């Protein structure tokens, strides 16, 4: 995004931190899937990651983060835990975003993530149409 290149390093650093929070959160839920505090923290991390990606022009990363945000927002509001299938899918998305962030650090462009988006939409029931 024009004029935002000076923020690219800051974006990568912040996004990487949020990926770490999401990674830790998913691991925690495998130990205790009823942990409401972890669900809340994952909602916040996904929300932050969404904003960071969208403002920098990374639409697909933003969309994946948006779906994760909605998954954990729903879980928080209904006092439930995402199913194991959803959690597995989210874990895969987190790892793929981590890889993409490494690629972006090497000045590569955002890859096509439409298959991941469709898969996460299908398993979560969340429509991420922007």
């Amino acid at each position: 995004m024009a004029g935002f290149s000076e923020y690219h390093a800051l974006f990568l650093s912040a996004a990487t931190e949020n990926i770490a929070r999401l990674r830790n959160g998913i691991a925690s839920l495998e130990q205790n899937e009823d942990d409401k505090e972890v669900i809340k923290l994952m909602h916040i991390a996904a929300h932050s990651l969404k904003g960071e990606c969208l403002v920098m022009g990374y639409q697909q990363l933003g969309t994946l983060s948006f779906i994760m945000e909605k998954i954990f927002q729903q879980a928080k509001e209904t006092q439930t835990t995402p199913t194991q299938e959803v959690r597995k899918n989210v874990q895969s998305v987190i790892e793929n975003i981590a890889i993409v962030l490494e690629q972006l650090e090497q000045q590569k462009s955002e890859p096509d993530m439409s298959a991941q988006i469709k898969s996460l939409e299908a398993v979560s029931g969340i429509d991420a149409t922007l």
Partner: protein
Amino acid sequence: MTILLIEDDNFFQKFYSTKLRDNNVMVEVASNGEEGLQKMIEARFDLILLDLVMPKLDGFEVLRERAKNDDLKKVPVLVFSTLGQEQDIEKAIQLGATDYQNKTFFNFEELMKKIVTLTS
């Protein structure tokens, strides 16, 4: 003009505070709603920029607390919205937020116009 930015995300804290300071606006930052509310009580600001999704006290809770205090109610609040938060914006306005700004489709001119309008 002094603005209080209540925002938990490091990226947006630096992004907005840098842009505002480059435009001669003094910025104080709080990393969550609890800290933000404390700063609002301790000092006088011309405007509050408020994120809604935050740890500890979230933006809605800050607005509820602000609504109980006649002095705090005098300070305009511009809430940040992002994609998928349309209902949240409605709720924030009902709780007393003065206006909102989409922080992900960033337009600094538009933000500054709103800030100038709200603080004049």
